[in-house]
């Protein structure tokens, strides 16, 4: 009973002191709940079955990420509770001198953790439930579902999961606390706070040398992941710069901790101005002892920034791509003259009848199925593409084939190139609202938008490689691929279409026919109805003889993309926020754990007449530098990290970088800045007690 009272009192006391600890616990719990409750928010939404599948996949990933997150949070909680233990060593010393046994002290701690655990779970879950209502708006927006009315959503499974995971974490904390109590000695506990700091200064020359080496190594690592990106082939190639980056980060902090003080000290006029000398010494003594920790925090921030900005980029780019790359409602393609490439189609699993009956356009084929597709269209166009075995990548690359082949051995050089009449392409371009082109006789050009392929093709175009087609010899009009596409898709995947003057084309080599159109209706439900009836055709027995046109519609692209982009966004947000919280919390706790030392120091300053304003300024600066140092290096890392990520994520598109960087900054300012302010205010409260 007495123990119970004691521990409750302790909690009351520490709630004020350790706002950060509780803040972190509550934040961690509510975020854990919110993301694990995502599925329940989508249950009420009216989404298609393909989107539903993606949601299922997303939840599986969220679950496994949650295990990882629980490790991170568990580490954080143990770390935090050890700090609390350290700060309270004197209190435990007094208990021991009073004759309270170690077992009972462990019991007090056990009860404290229990109370804190229950309290934080209650508050955290409460907050999480509120936050998930707001989250459901975001979810609805992501999946482009209509949220007709507000429904209160509570996910029991997520709540139970949160409780179980955090209970395990608290249990581990209890074990750790008990262990550290049983190991401690009374004399250390009582004297713990008194040991005055020993200032060790590093050799400045060594610091300068190490700093220079670290910067060079880091520069090399940056270079490897950006400029030398195309030479990266194996996993080892990526791990090497990462290891280099980690080590040089550590060395930079190690050498900086020795250098900053020296440098500023040499500017005497600045160093001996107001409390500058004090602030700098405070900072340097702290960074000296926390080089390792600062390195970890810097790296975590780096991962956070890259994660948030690239996942948001993917999302933004995907949405932008749809607007750009799916400009019309529907497109149907129909293979023609399949018998000309009998082997090719046979390998794909088409039967002989289908291959034989392949001289209909898409429109004609629909008519054959008694389906008047054009009656649903407000407007439509029909265009053709051509292909011949005589024009493959082998031919377009011309004399540069061997050079390209050695550098890019993985390309399929024997695939037939897609050829289009310039007039047909311009018809499409006009319909899509993209750039139209003009060609003279004996000229050709390539439109493509898949960057890696564009680069390869440009090598040949720059070299003015001629191509010969149906007895004509053609020269490239441009030295570069031009932007453009024919098939609608969610990404930039046009690897190249060769545009030639109309008179060059031999109609015998007709390859595909396209029917592209806009529906009369813009109502989503009616469009679904139309597309369902098209899909119904697939059940007809005619499909064994006559191949149905392959349809790509804006709606289907949208649905696939929306699901994927939502998945990437949520998982990126989840991990990013957890990392951000962790690093900010560690910094804050570190700062606060030293506030008892600081308290003594600030007390001395007050006694010699330093004003409150100056003290607050010094404290603010001290904490600001402590928070900013790892962030600055992390931002520098991120500039290169994001560049690297962009190249990896090229398929998804990377056009929309700026908004996602802005969003990331907002997250950073809110969470990191929030922790900074809480730390500053808590420290101010701790040192405020006058004399």
């Amino acid at each position, binding site marked *: 009973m007495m123990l119970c009272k004691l521990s409750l009192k302790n909690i009351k006391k520490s709630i004020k002191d350790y706002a950060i600890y509780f803040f972190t616990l509550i934040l961690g719990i509510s975020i854990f709940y919110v993301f694990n409750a995502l599925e329940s928010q989508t249950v009420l939404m009216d989404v298609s079955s393909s989107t539903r599948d993606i949601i299922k996949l997303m939840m599986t990933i969220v679950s496994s990420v949650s295990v990882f997150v629980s490790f991170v949070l568990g580490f954080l909680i143990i770390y935090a509770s050890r700090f609390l233990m350290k700060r309270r060593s004197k209190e435990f010393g007094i208990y021991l001198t009073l004759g309270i046994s170690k077992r009972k002290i462990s019991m007090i701690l056990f009860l404290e953790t229990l109370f804190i655990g229950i309290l934080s779970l209650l508050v955290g879950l409460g907050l999480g439930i509120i936050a998930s209502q707001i989250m459901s708006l975001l979810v609805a927006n992501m999946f482009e579902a209509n949220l007709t009315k507000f429904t209160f959503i509570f996910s029991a499974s997520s709540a139970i999961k949160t409780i179980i995971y955090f209970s395990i974490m608290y249990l581990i904390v209890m074990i750790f606390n008990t262990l550290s109590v049983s190991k401690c000695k009374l004399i250390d506990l009582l004297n713990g706070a008194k040991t*005055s*700091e*020993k*200032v060790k200064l590093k050799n400045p020359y060594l610091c300068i040398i190490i700093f220079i080496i670290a910067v060079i190594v880091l520069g090399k690592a940056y270079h490897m992941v950006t400029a030398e990106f195309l030479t990266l082939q194996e996993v080892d190639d990526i791990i090497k710069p990462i290891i280099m980056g980690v080590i040089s980060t550590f060395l930079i902090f190690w050498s900086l901790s020795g250098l900053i003080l020296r440098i500023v000290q040499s500017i*005497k*006029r600045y*160093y*001996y*101005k*107001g*409390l*500058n*000398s*004090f602030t700098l*010494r*405070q900072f340097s*003594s702290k960074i000296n002892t926390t080089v390792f920790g600062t390195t970890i925090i810097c790296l975590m921030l780096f991962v956070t920034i890259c994660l948030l900005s690239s996942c948001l980029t993917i999302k933004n780019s995907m949405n932008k791509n749809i607007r750009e790359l799916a400009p019309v409602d529907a497109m149907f393609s129909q293979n023609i003259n399949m018998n000309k490439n009998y082997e090719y189609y046979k390998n794909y699993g088409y039967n002989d009848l289908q291959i034989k009956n392949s001289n209909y356009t898409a429109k004609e084929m629909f008519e054959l199925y008694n389906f008047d597709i054009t009656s649903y269209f407000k407007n439509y166009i029909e265009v053709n593409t051509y292909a011949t075995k005589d024009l493959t990548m082998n031919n377009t690359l011309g004399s540069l084939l061997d050079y390209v082949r050695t550098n890019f051995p993985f390309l399929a050089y024997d695939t037939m190139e897609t050829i289009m009449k310039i007039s047909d392409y311009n018809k499409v371009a006009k319909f899509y609202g993209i750039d139209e082109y003009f060609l003279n006789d004996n000229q050709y050009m390539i439109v493509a938008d898949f960057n890696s392929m564009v680069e390869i093709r440009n090598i040949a175009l720059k070299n003015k490689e001629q191509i010969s087609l149906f007895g004509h010899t053609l020269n490239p009009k441009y030295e570069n691929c031009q932007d453009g596409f024919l098939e609608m898709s969610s990404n930039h995947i046009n690897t190249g279409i060769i545009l030639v003057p109309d008179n060059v084309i031999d109609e015998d080599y007709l390859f595909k026919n396209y029917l592209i159109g806009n529906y009369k209706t813009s109502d989503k439900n009616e469009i679904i109805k139309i597309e369902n009836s098209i899909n119904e055709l697939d059940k007809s027995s005619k499909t064994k003889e006559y191949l149905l046109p392959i349809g790509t519609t804006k709606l289907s692209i949208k649905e696939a993309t929306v699901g994927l982009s939502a998945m990437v966004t949520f998982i990126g947000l989840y991990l990013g926020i957890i990392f951000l919280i962790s690093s900010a919390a560690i910094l804050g706790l570190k700062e606060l754990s030293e506030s008892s030392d600081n308290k003594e*120091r600030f007390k*001395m*300053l*007050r*006694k*010699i*007449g*330093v*004003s*409150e*304003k*100056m003290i607050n300024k010094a404290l603010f600066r001290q904490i600001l530098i402590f928070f900013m140092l790892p962030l600055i290096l992390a931002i520098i890392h991120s500039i290169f990290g994001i560049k690297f990520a962009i190249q990896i994520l090229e398929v998804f598109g990377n056009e929309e970088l700026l908004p996602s960087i802005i969003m990331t900054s907002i997250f950073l300012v809110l969470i990191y800045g929030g922790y900074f302010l809480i730390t500053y205010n808590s420290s101010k409260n701790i040192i405020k007690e006058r*004399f």
Partner: protein
Amino acid sequence: MEKILEVKNIEKYYGNKSSLTKAIDGISFDIEKGEFVAIMGSSGSGKTTLLNLVSTIDKVTSGHILVECLDITKLKGEELNKFRREQLGFIFQDFNLLDTLTAYENIALSLAILNMPYKEIDEKVRKVAKELNILGVLEKYPYEMSGGEKQRVASARAVITNPKLILADEPTGALDSKSSKMLLEKFNYLNNDLGATILMVTHDAFTASYASRVIFIKDGKIFKEINRGDDNRKEFFDKIIDVVTLLGGDLNDAL
């Protein structure tokens, strides 16, 4: 002589109506420029409270304290800090040096917060360090110094701003006898040769015997006051011991 400090009938009560403790119960005295005054008393006699009131760390319940005719009991907030920064110098029993700063930086800090330019700071620090014989430890950190050295550094920090009044709270409390003697001789040097006015609180008769006047406090009231006059230190010490004996056993532990 010019009066530096006038303490006028001050009282300091702690607690509430039901249990009132009179830490200071009507004390009045003056200190003139260039005096070295010791305040003696046993634990709980109110001597530290008195020092805290003079140093504006604590506030009086009633009465007035005037430093050069300025009533410091009326000062508030920033005025108090400014007063403390510019008019007072502090020396504490536990030195109160900042452990992260070197001796030089510790001393320089009290000038830096007055926004003095570096050139002047450097000049002054070297001068006072020479006077207090601590030139050799200027680049050391507190943990590398002996207690005596630390206290002399603290004294240097206290006198460097040229304060009207130096307040010393048990300055020899944490020192061995040799260091104590050396420190007190430096106090005499500051007092006689540099004209510093010192108010020192102590319970040690030996320490008090370096002063020019000793005020004895018991239960928050002035018990007795003796002047050194023309006595040498030994004779003055004997006089102090007499009063201590008169005060009763309370102070015996101090010997």
